[in-house]
């Protein structure tokens, strides 16, 4: 039997009979209307093309600032910040655990001073910025807000996204600091602060990307991501917010893997399930609460180190699937990203891939051109039902936090990942250049080399900062943060105070570690 990349069975031909139970009015609707299967906006790309948003960050804030300005100069329309591991874990660059990691996988941000350098010369009220930060999202976002304020921007005019999706960290990406429950408090504090002070900010980017990259199937990615979304909505409501106050600012982030139609169906099913869930389960009334707005990224895991130029073709197909699936913004991977962070040359090809789809292919001129396809509608329905089964199972376990504590999604992903590895081994799944069509003599490409100097520069900056700032004010602000963490007040105002005083990220996270504790995952395989 033939299957999709995820092992979902497919047949050779689909006909009208396959759509026997399918009601176009109920299941499809029109673009921009419930259940939004065909897209969240009526005019889709005719109104505005998707945002071309390349994830970037390496070395120091000054180096990344140069890459940002280059990308904006090349026609990129939004920014997306990659932070290094010490920043993601709330360690300063001079912490022992940061040794060898500073600036390697993203930009190092230790304090407000680095955020100022990161956005030097970039008008923060003129660009939307996505920041991939989870456990320390509140602190990084506070640095962004204060930097924008220094530029003269009003918080109410700022727009962008913080990933701030801790549940998928426990499930897949594993950059957690605190245990789940205090982490959920940080998230609801951010949501309620944004609702009052930064109303155009997307507070959580509920992410399937990392779940898929960790080896899940497309259905698992869909189901676990949407169930995470349900968990955030439930916690927002428990924190005393009305669903329509904050749900419009939740957005989603999906992976776009190799299987062309499966990925398109996944995005369509995501919109239909989310709209139904918000309407029926949470009684949302605001139409914007029902929208599953999507950022998509082509699948990093699908890139091959062997014959890396083939990756340009993979990325183009995946990007086309994302566009046909109706994404709102897109990152296309660079051909060398399985080897290192991308060179400027490689990232330019990745951006041009999007521009070619947008300007040359003709695809964006038609709204949901695949709507009504026998195969695509059947697959969308099957993936929807399979996801709802998973969601139901997690509901019966008592929700996603309990499921995570039981290791349930982690084990499901692990099984799927092993099945996929075996399929590669047996060549049931062919990867060109890896298990078929190999070359005897590999032809390497030039890759970006990140020097050792980022760590030295960051450590020197920290020494100067600690000597120059008002350390009494820092201590006072950190004490305020500790008091708030021990009590029930919203944590954002004391975090903003700490940031203004130039407290470092590590100092703030250490305070929270001392109150909340740290999460450790039991090792299993």
């Amino acid at each position, binding site marked *: 039997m033939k299957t999709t990349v995820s092992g979902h069975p497919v047949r050779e031909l689909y006909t009208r009979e396959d759509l026997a139970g399918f009601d176009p009015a109920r299941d499809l609707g029109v673009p921009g209307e419930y259940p939004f299967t065909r897209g969240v906006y009526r005019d889709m790309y005719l109104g505005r093309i998707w945002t071309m948003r390349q994830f970037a960050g390496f070395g120091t804030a000054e180096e990344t600032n140069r890459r940002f300005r280059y990308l904006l100069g090349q026609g990129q329309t939004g920014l997306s910040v990659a932070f290094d*591991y*010490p920043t*993601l*874990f709330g360690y300063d660059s001079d912490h022992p*655990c940061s*040794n*060898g*990691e500073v600036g*390697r*996988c993203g930009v190092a941000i230790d304090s407000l001073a680095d955020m100022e350098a990161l956005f030097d010369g970039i008008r923060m009220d003129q660009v939307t910025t996505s920041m991939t930060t989870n456990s320390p999202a509140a602190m990084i976002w506070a640095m962004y807000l204060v930097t924008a304020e220094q530029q003269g921007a009003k918080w109410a005019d700022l727009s962008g996204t913080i990933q701030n999706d801790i549940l998928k*960290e426990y499930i*897949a*990406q*594993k*950059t957690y600091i605190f245990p789940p429950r205090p982490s959920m408090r940080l998230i609801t504090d951010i949501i309620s602060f944004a609702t009052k002070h930064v109303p155009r900010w997307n507070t959580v980017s509920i992410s399937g990307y990392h779940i898929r*990259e*960790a*080896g899940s199937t497309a259905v698992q990615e869909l189901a676990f991501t949407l169930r995470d979304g349900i968990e955030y909505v439930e916690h927002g409501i428990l924190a005393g917010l009305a669903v329509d106050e904050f749900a419009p600012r939740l957005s989603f982030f999906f992976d776009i893997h190799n299987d062309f139609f499966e990925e398109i169906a996944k995005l369509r099913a995501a919109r239909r399930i989310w709209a139904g869930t918000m309407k029926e389960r949470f009684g949302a009334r605001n139409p914007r609460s029902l929208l599953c707005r999507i950022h998509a990224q082509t699948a990093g*895991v699908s890139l*091959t*180190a*062997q014959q890396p130029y083939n990756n340009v073709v993979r990325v183009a197909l995946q990007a086309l699937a994302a566009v046909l699936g109706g994404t709102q913004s897109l990152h296309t991977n660079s051909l060398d990203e*399985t*080897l*290192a962070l991308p060179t400027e040359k490689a990232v330019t090809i990745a951006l041009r891939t999007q521009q070619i789809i947008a300007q040359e292919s003709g695809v964006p001129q038609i709204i949901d051109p695949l709507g009504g396809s026998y195969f695509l509608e059947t697959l969308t329905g099957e993936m929807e039902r399979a996801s709802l089964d998973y969601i139901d199972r997690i509901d019966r376990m008592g929700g996603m936090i309990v499921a995570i504590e039981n290791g349930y999604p982690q084990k499901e992903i*692990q099984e799927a*990942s*092993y099945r996929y*590895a*075996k399929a*590669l*081994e047996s060549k049931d799944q062919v*990867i060109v250049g*890896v*298990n078929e069509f190999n070359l005897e003599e590999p032809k*390497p490409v030039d*890759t970006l*080399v*990140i020097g050792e100097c980022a760590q030295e520069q960051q450590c020197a900056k920290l020494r100067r900062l600690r000597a120059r700032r008002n350390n009494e004010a820092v201590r006072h602000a950190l004490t305020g943060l500790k008091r708030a963490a021990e009590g029930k007040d919203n944590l954002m105002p004391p975090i903003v105070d700490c940031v203004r005083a130039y407290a470092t990220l590590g100092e703030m996270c250490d305070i929270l570690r001392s109150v909340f504790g740290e999460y*450790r*995952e*039991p*090792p*299993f*395989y």
Partner: protein
Amino acid sequence: MSERRIRVLIAKPGLDGHDRGAKVIARALRDAGMEVIYTGLRQTPEQIIAAALQEDVDVIGLSILSGAHMHLFPRILELRRQQRLEDVLVFAGGIIPDQDISKLKEMGIAEIFPPGSSLAEIVAFVKSRVRPPVSGGLNEK
């Protein structure tokens, strides 16, 4: 008398949380009849060598995708020497640029498996390089 099974420690040094490869390799080695211990994430070189000592392993497999391998691997090899564990085979996988692979092999990493390496190849490598000592009596498992 029966052959002692090959004992492998699969370890994740560095801060990255990419454990997909480590877990797949752990499973593949187990399915090939080895005893596999997985350390979990973010292990320091000290923790890894302590675990290798405590678990009496024949092999250490290191998986890292954070880019900090040139800092962490030499330290792991140095601690292996200090603990007189030179007989323990160390191999690695992950995102490791070509220019680092030759340096790391010179330092004493037996083999580095880049992305796309086959499971069979890794299993065969471990089996070929570790001759399981024959044990009997008290130590028999």
